[in-house]
């Protein structure tokens, strides 16, 4: 007998017919009818009208029929809640059935019926089933708690099911333990408060590790995944967990292997990277990862996406396994593309020859995306492994000879990068490139080719003709190409002014008059202006040296990588996105994971009073720049909470008036709104001109923004603390040919919450070659965000020309508060209180001062000597200081008369700051 016939009934009146069959006396007929109903349900027909008739079939001793009816119930109960109640009695009765399979079936199904009234009746049977004598019933009941929590979380908590679930973690049956841990993990993650409802401890982890050896493959996955959320209390515990998990790497199920890899990768973070244990473990990780590549392609894909993360986090693990990532002819395309990615990451000098010959082979395959990626990979090899550059270039040239359109275009794009990485080395191939000009139809390739022509215009005899040919269809080109073309022609003009004047005129007209793209128009105007006022300056700007390009362009940004490592094996690791990017809502705040850190590197922000954000989430350079870019420079740059000093709102209209001044031939006309904010300016002047007013240590000024990067604006600067006020002291010099005005400053969020206490005042306009000493008072009252290193500060300065970003390192001593003197007794008890692990020792060399001189010098910098002792001919100074964010730092300075080397011991609850304190001490003592 076959069941497929049930799929075919599509007559009208079907429902009616089914109804009568369902109510038939004959058991066989009833069963047939229910099957038909399920078949209709599967294909999406609405058979909810049959609800009462189907439920009537529930009372049966035929297990198969019962399961079908339950299936129907799960589907339709929600749409017919009142009638679903009819089923409750049977459920409750079934939960008492002598057959454990039926008891489990009843409790399993009941949990899937999401109707409030039924849920009420579920509690008692569930409570019983959690204590059932049969493990099959218990393991089913464990999952049912998670189901119930999904329907009604508070009910689960009120009824004490969580405790019962926790007890199941000690069950004698491994499968019960596994299901219980799965349910608990889910409940924890869904917890609305973000605080896990059930904390794991050493004891439970031990139980789980015991069950791990005995349960089903899936159970092992549940257990491993939940262990991965646990943070061992110390390195020793982490090691013992690793040891007990390592055998799982030999399991045939890829999920068990990857989940074990996740736990190991996470726990390895807690150990010193060069410890024997870590080295050995790394060796053990490679074989199982390689073995995953002989599984089914879908599993391979997941494995490869994860391996991509692993080679970025710990490149050593797979460094000798290049060959296993070679692409096979009939790998599915998604496997091929991933393998290619990993090959490039693993490429190094020793294997590059093999890699290249493979890549060349791939470049002749059929799939366009794959071929393009292969060509691009060759270029990346050239940039990454310098000795191979020569071979890569010749391989690319071979590929260009194939004349396959997309291969040629891709090759030209990468050759441009190679030129940038190795200037003046491979320009001999330019002529070959020029032969392919006509075939280029993609913007990126055209843009790259034009860039090459412009950059090497002096070596290409007919550069003007080539560029002119592009110019004919200027309007139809994409913006990218238009911009390149404009720049290239200007470059050409600067190199060969004699015969290209007409061409440059033409392109400038096209860009400024015939285009409605503002970027293009502005760039056109700028070039025009530059060329007409000062060709020498134009040369410096347009033909300036370019920054070198880096080797690895597509690495994941480190904090994201760390987060993804915590999610190995999961969807997040497949998408390379944090779960918040693709999972909706509940309890997400709690699910953001961070790698554990080695002990001793406790987070400074934990002791800082003002912080409200999660620690450990270190923003990336990239996102910070993003922050800076989106800052509204037109708006008040001072947080409104600071009662700012007089604030000339009219003086900060940064957005208008620039271009006009630039274009009219009167650059010296002072902008009408340049009214300095007097009081601040005066203050600044006083402090700026009288650096001797205070004797506290101020580091010499350093170059912050060289003129080349600041488009003519040069900034040197330092930080100081004068009369309790932190200040940024800058010398701003205009090295450009035109006056600068409309200065403003913004600071990015930083570790100490520094924000400007007043707007930046600079004499305006700042004439060419004029310097100005600007002083910017700072308050530590802004938002706090941990930086790496702690004293890093990112600054944006704007003027009428552009916005410039740079990062500076602040000396720690500017944060030493005036009230840093600690009472002797408090000092003593605090010193004892802080764990010895937090003590860090440094040596300071070349100090030729007596202890008293040191003491008084430190005192001027708000480091207060609490006690002085002489032990065996050594002077010991005990000192205290307090940072503006309330962190106390205690120190012991050991010095021997006649010996210029001091030993400094720093003790604080936030050891992250110790290094900065040492640097500050060193600087002060040498000042």
């Amino acid at each position, binding site marked *: 007998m076959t*069941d*497929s016939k049930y799929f075919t009934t599509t007559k009208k009146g079907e429902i009616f017919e089914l109804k009568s069959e369902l109510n038939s006396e004959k058991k066989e007929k009833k069963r047939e009818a229910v099957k038909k109903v399920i078949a209709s349900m599967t*294909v999406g027909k609405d058979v909810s009208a049959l609800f009462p008739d189907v439920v009537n079939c529930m009372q049966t001793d035929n*297990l*198969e029929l019962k*399961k079908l009816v339950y*299936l129907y119930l799960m*589907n339709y109960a929600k749409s017919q809640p009142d009638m679903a109640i009819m089923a409750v009695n049977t459920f409750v009765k079934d939960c008492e059935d*002598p057959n*454990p399979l039926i008891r489990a079936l009843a409790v399993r199904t009941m949990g*899937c019926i999401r109707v409030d009234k039924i849920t009420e009746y579920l509690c008692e049977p569930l409570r019983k089933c959690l204590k059932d004598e049969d493990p*099959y019933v218990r393991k089913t009941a464990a*999952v049912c708690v998670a189901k119930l929590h999904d329907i009604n979380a508070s009910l689960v908590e009120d009824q004490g099911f969580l405790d019962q679930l926790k007890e199941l973690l000690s069950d004698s*049956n*491994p*499968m*019960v333990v596994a*299901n219980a841990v*799965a349910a608990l993990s889910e409940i924890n993650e869904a917890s609305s408060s973000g605080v896990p409802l059930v904390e794991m401890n050493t004891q439970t982890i031990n139980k789980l590790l015991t069950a791990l*050896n005995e349960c*089903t*493959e*899936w159970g092992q996955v*549940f257990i491993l995944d939940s262990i991965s959320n646990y943070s061992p209390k110390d390195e020793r515990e982490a090691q013992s967990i690793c040891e007990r998990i390592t*055998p799982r790497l*030999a*399991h*045939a199920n890829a*999920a068990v292997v*990857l*989940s074990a890899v996740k736990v190991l990768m996470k726990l390895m973070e807690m150990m010193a990277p060069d410890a024997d244990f870590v080295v050995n473990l790394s060796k053990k990780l*490679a*074989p*199982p990862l390689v*073995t995953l590549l*002989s599984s*089914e392609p*879908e*599993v391979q*894909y*997941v494995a490869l996406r994860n391996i991509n993360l692993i080679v970025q986090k710990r490149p050593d693990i797979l460094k000798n*396994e290049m*060959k296993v990532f*070679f692409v*096979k002819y*009939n790998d599915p*395309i998604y496997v091929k593309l991933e393998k290619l990615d990993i090959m490039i990451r693993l490429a190094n000098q020793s294997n590059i020859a093999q890699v290249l010959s493979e890549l060349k*082979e791939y470049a*002749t395959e*059929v799939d366009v995306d794959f071929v393009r990626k292969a060509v691009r990979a060759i270029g990346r090899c050239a940039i990454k492994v310098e000795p191979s550059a020569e071979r890569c270039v010749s391989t690319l040239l071979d590929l260009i000879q194939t004349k*396959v359109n997309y291969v040629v275009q891709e090759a030209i794009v990468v050759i441009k990068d190679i030129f940038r990485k190795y200037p003046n080395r491979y320009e001999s191939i330019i002529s070959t490139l020029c032969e392919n000009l006509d075939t280029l139809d993609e913007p990126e390739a055209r843009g790259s080719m034009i860039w090459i022509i412009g950059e090497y215009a002096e070596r290409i005899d007919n550069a003007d003709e080539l560029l002119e040919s592009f110019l004919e269809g200027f309007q139809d080109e994409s913006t990218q190409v238009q911009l390149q073309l404009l720049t290239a022609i200007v470059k050409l003009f600067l190199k060969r002014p004699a015969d290209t004047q007409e061409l440059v005129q033409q392109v400038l007209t096209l860009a400024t008059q015939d285009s409605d793209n503002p970027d293009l128009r502005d760039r056109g105007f700028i070039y025009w202006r530059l060329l007409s006022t000062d060709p020498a300056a134009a040369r410096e700007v347009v033909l300036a040296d370019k920054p070198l390009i880096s080797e690895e362009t597509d690495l994941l940004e480190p904090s994201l990588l760390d987060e993804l490592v915590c999610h190995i*094996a*999961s969807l*997040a*690791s*497949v998408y390379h996105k944090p779960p918040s990017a*693709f*999972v*909706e809502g509940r309890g997400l705040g709690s*699910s953001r994971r961070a790698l554990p850190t080695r002990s001793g590197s406790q987070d400074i922000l934990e002791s800082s009073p003002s912080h409200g954000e999660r620690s450990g989430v270190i923003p990336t350079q990239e996102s910070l720049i993003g922050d800076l870019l989106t800052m509204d420079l037109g708006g008040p740059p001072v947080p409104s909470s600071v009662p700012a000093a007089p604030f000339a709102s009219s003086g900060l209209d940064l957005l208008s008036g620039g271009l006009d001044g630039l274009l009219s031939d009167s650059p010296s006309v002072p902008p009408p709104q340049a009214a300095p904010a007097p009081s601040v300016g005066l203050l600044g002047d006083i402090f700026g001109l009288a650096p001797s007013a205070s004797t506290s240590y101020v580091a010499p000024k350093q170059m912050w923004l060289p003129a080349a990067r600041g488009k003519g604006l040069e900034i040197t600067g330092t930080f100081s603390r004068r009369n309790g006020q932190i200040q940024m002291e800058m010398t701003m010099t205009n090295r450009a040919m035109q006056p600068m005005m409309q200065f403003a400053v913004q600071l990015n969020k930083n570790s100490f919450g520094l924000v400007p206490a007043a707007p930046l005042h600079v004499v305006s306009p700042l004439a060419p070659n004029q310097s100005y000493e600007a002083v910017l008072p700072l308050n530590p009252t802004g938002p706090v965000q941990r930086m790496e290193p702690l004293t890093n500060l990112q600054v944006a300065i704007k003027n009428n020309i552009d916005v410039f970003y740079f990062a500076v390192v602040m000396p720690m001593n500017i944060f030493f508060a005036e009230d840093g003197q600690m009472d002797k007794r408090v000092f003593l008890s605090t010193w004892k209180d802080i764990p010895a692990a937090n003590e860090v020792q440094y040596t300071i060399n070349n100090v030729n001062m007596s202890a008293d001189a040191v003491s008084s010098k430190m005192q001027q910098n708000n480091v207060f000597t609490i006690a002085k002792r002489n032990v065996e001919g050594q002077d010991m100074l005990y000192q205290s200081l307090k940072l503006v964010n309330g962190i106390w730092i205690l120190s012991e300075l050991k010095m021997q008369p006649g010996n210029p080397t001091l030993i400094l011991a720093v003790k604080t609850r936030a050891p992250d700051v110790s290094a900065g304190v040492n640097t500050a001490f060193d600087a002060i003592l040498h000042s």
Partner: protein
Amino acid sequence: MIGGLFIYNHKGEVLISRVYRDDIGRNAVDAFRVNVIHARQQVRSPVTNIARTSFFHVKRANIWVAAVTKQNVNASMVFEFLLKVTDCMQSYFGKVSEENIKNNFVLIYELLDEILDFGYPQNTDTGVLKTFITQQGIRTQTKEEQAQITSQVTGQIGWRREGIKYRRNELFLDVLEYVNLLMSPQGQVLSAHVAGKVVMKSYLSGMPECKFGINDKIIMEAKGKPSFHQCVKLSKFETEHSISFIPPDGEFELMRYRTTKDISLPFRVIPLVREVGRTKMEVKVVVKSNFKPSLLAQKIEIRIPTPLNTSGVQLLCMKGKAKYKASENAIVWKIKRMGGMKESQLSAEIELLQTDTKKKWTRPPISMNFEVPFAPSGFKVRYLKVFEPKLNYSDHDVIKWVRYIGRSGLYETRC
């Protein structure tokens, strides 16, 4: 966890649909059909995200099996599970085809109810499932039988039931190896590895403890680190390098391994391709067998790709039969048997149509299939000892059979 599981035919019609979680609605069924099955482009990933819902799929023959979720699930687990689902169906009713699925849909629903609870995979071992999901309708089990079933499903030895009895205790071991090769036209090995597995068929009474011994090569070589069936005590392997287990009843895959060292490649293919003008090509292929002359290789097939614009082929071969198959764009050369240390040759003249396509023919590699009666990796079974303390049969009474088979995996030579 998994929110729902759907099975479709090649047209995208739903054959099975089981929803486990409330966050997955009926529209998910259609979303997958529209965005993946009916997508114009070739499938670029086995994982697809559509409107914050993730779809995992495996496609076997004409059947799509898809799992759906809205959570950050363990992706490797989902795929392993989907593969288990297809295995499971196969072991119940043979080929996973539309017809078989429709014929067994009630059974499939019953299975899905058992092996996936609220999206969490449960015991998926077919041996165990078959003891209580039977499609026999009502089956009155005694209390003992019921207890036995449940302890097996959840038990520590979930893969074997108690009380198995055979009059003849017998076991079969197949060492099955797939040799993979990628060779350059000049005969340089670009990559080669053996993917091997040991398949065991056991017909043993009681709860026998088995100890399996092999030569050190696989165990010692770091890269070949094997993976094992869940019955193998992994911690014992880690500490003592011994493989001990209580086997499931019947056939199962005991271990899987992989090695790249010291592989003896059974065959070498030497291609010679010459393009004579624009309309003619000459191909010469030599095959050399490289193993003991006393052994015989079987089912040898060499597939030589031809350009798309081939109009005719003249073939000449010393041994076996060769045919040009236009539909497959290849010359297929079959040799039934071939002894060790022999060689054979095929030459072909390929006539080509004039084409104006600029794109060069990309010369796919020549691939080869074969079967040889030895393990190319050098894998050796040293012993397999059986202990069953409770029953009165000893290791000597068990009849043991060991067989080695080496097959071609992807065995390719570029030309």
